[in-house]
């Protein structure tokens, strides 16, 4: 077998491929996106891969495929699981026909997320077993095993990743795909029609399943004791197991839990019996810790370890052994942070420049354009979850009335609008709202690294497909005023925004300009600031990373960062900036 250096996400895809998966359907979300992107590199004759409009749809597609007899997988980030929750809670009742795996990636440390929720709660709440690998090798092996468990126990199986596991590369032995015949499809109303009479019976099955899985957890090869004849025991799973190994080496005993729901009882009790002190090392919520305490095992957990962010080996060494970091040089001065910014040439910059200038309240959404909240633009007022820009703005207008509404817009990306913005827009039309929604159509799903979506006209494999016509879609739900405008033509864009927000009817502005990082976008040359500059600093209000000024001197444009998009040329009141 070949050994390759693979991302955790790529290893999940490899595991699913080798397990003979037939259908993979997902919505992109950092840190899970690359799983589905990697799936699309396998031949389409073997695996049907899609970007779905949202996570709920993606899970339903996968469940349908499973019921019809083909192994299926759906992948999402932790907050995507909230959107997926509806079908998933019932999928544990229907169970599966062919194996069904749901892979969810948590984002400890919130590298790219709006919250830090712990997906393990879903496993317990939905009564679905959950495996947690700690490196890429395990990602592949656990995925293959997850499909087996799914079929053996007639249940969907979760795989939980963390950002660190999803986005770390380690060595993986790559094998061959095991081609599997489709399982026969048989109509089974009692199993697949979840109306009360049937669901009542299926719930009995769910509880039986969980009992069987608890027995499995006691003897599963996923849960392993490493005895180093120490008086200290450490219980850990996923990445924290590796951090503990790094920090503590062979100075403690380990119980590594590869399965985090259901948790074993006897195994934990027996492990603890041989130790004087047992630590539970788990990022985020005290799920294993509370289980230990509930079964009467004394452990040290959150009194020593935080519920916030990612852990490090250093933290564990300090908490367990009282050992501090090796000798190093700490900084003797405060240094400026480097927060992410919209790229040079970003089409959203023009939009937020105008919204800021007009002093509008901006109900924001999830995507690159969340960065419209960052200085100097400081334009966005709220960001909650996918789609909330549209519906939350409607709620704001209900309370604050018509005048407030004329100073209020929603901004939402093209992909996010399809994901869950359209339903909010229907609400506005149906319930007689007069809001203005700006769809930031940059021709791609940007934040997660360029994925196609229903508005781009291409599938995940780059094949041409029908393209959702945003104008017709908005018209069809009852929006009569839909205007397409270029956010880099700041004067016209400003005029359009003024007109539409003044309107006593609901309206949609489609701010259309492609993402500057798309290969099809070819800006040329650089912008330069000429000696006509009066040092008014208007260009600095754009928050373009290429434009800076030092000690009150006139602004300068960094050639290495500027891509010649020309937005600054359009905002300079003295025509002092030129394209060169």
């Amino acid at each position, binding site marked *: 077998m070949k050994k390759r*250096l693979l991302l955790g996400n790529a290893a999940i895809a490899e595991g699913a491929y080798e397990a003979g998966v037939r259908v993979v359907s997902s919505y992109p979300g950092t*840190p899970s996106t690359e799983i589905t992107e990697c799936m699309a590199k396998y031949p389409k004759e073997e695996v049907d891969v899609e970007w779905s409009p949202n996570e709920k749809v993606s899970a339903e597609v996968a469940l349908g495929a499973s019921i019809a007899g083909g192994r299926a997988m759906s992948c999402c980030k932790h907050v995507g699981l909230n959107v997926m929750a509806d079908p998933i809670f019932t999928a544990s009742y229907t169970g599966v026909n062919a194996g069904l795996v749901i892979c969810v990636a948590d984002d400890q440390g919130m590298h790219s997320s709006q919250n830090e929720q712990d997906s393990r709660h879903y496993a317990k709440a939905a009564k679905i077993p959950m495996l947690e690998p700690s*490196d890429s090798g395990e990602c592949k092996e656990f995925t293959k095993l997850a499909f087996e468990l799914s079929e053996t126990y007639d249940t969907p199986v979760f795989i939980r990743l963390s950002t660190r596991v999803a*986005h770390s590369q380690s060595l993986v032995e790559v094998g061959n795909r095991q081609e599997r015949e489709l399982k026969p499809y048989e109509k089974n109303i009692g199993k697949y029609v979840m109306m009360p009479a049937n669901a009542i019976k299926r719930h009995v099955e769910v509880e039986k399943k969980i009992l069987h899985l608890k027995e499995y957890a006691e003897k599963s090869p996923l849960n392993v004791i490493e005895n180093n004849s120490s008086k200290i025991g450490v219980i850990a799973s996923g990445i924290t197991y590796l951090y503990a190994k*790094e920090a503590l080496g062979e100075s403690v005993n380990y119980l590594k839990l590869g399965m985090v729901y259901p948790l074993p009882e006897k195994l934990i009790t027996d492990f603890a019996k041989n130790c004087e002190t047992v630590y539970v090392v788990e990022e985020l919520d005290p799920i294993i810790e509370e289980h230990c305490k509930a079964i009467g095992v004394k452990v040290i957990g959150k009194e020593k370890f935080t519920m916030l962010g990612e852990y490090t080996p250093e933290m564990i060494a300090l908490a367990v052994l009282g050992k501090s970091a090796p000798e*190093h040089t700490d900084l003797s001065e405060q240094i400026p942070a*480097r927060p992410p*910014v919209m790229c040079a040439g970003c089409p959203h910059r023009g939009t937020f420049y105008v919204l800021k200038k007009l002093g509008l309240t901006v109900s924001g959404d999830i995507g690159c354009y969340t960065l419209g909240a960052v200085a100097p633009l400081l334009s966005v007022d709220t960001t909650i979850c996918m789609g909330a820009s549209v519906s939350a703005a409607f709620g704001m207008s209900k309370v604050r009335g018509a005048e407030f509404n004329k100073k209020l817009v929603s901004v939402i990306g093209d992909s996010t609008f399809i994901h869950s913005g359209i339903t909010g827009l229907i609400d506005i039309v149906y319930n007689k709202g007069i809001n203005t929604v700006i769809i930031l159509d940059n021709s791609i799903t940007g934040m*997660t690294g360029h994925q196609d979506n229903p508005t781009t006209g291409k599938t995940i494999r780059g094949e041409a497909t029908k393209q959702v016509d945003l104008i017709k879609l908005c018209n069809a739900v009852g929006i009569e005023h839909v205007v397409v405008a270029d956010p880099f033509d700041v004067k016209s864009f400003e005029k359009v925004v003024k007109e539409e927000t003044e309107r006593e009817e609901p309206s949609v502005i489609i701010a259309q300009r492609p993402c500057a990082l798309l290969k099809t976008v070819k800006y040329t040359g650089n912008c330069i600031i000429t000696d006509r500059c009066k040092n008014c600093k208007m260009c600095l209000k754009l928050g373009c990373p290429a434009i800076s000024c030092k000690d009150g001197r006139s602004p300068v444009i960094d050639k*290495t960062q500027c891509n010649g998009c020309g937005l600054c040329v359009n905002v300079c009141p003295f025509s002092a900036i030129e394209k060169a």
Partner: protein
Amino acid sequence: MCDNIVRISDSLPENAVNTDKNILLEAQSILIVGVGGQGTLLASRILGNTVIGQGYDVKVSEVHGMSQRGGSVVTYVKYGKKVYSPIIGKGEADIILAFEQLEAYRALPYLKKGGKMIINNQKIPPMPVITGAARYPENIEEKLCAVCDLVSIDALSMASSAGNIKTLNVVLIGVMAKNTNIPYEAWVETLKTTVPERLLDVNLRAFDLGYNI
């Protein structure tokens, strides 16, 4: 000005840097830091793939998402007989490869005592500096030089003389490669499999410029 800040621009003096060829014999942890968009991810992949060719266990950890957009980017590469944690703690990095001065400075606490800092002397002001909310620290090279073994190069000019400023990551990889015991050919082999064919020549030139300083 510190003596061992080596400034290298278009004219490349031979033997400008006193390279300690064995530095990586025992080294296991390399921190690559920079600004989103500078090509740090590719650098870590080139390093990771070269190292596995030498029979080591290896882990590479990277951060995607928000930090692609001009934010600080930190990538960890660790290798050895067996690697557990993919991340590097304070005082643990044998080498820090920094694509930008401020990011080099930010990463300093992660450098092991006696470790080596290889930096591109480019300065990219972060948004709080652009908006005037913060100041870009002064004399970073001197401050680093006072506390660690520093090699500072003008990778941007070198990349530009190689034919494409985007190859600055490969220039830096070249400088680091020279400080390892991994043979030249192994790096070239990895470059051949990692960069697109049409860009191979310019990348090989960039690598050589870094390697031969």
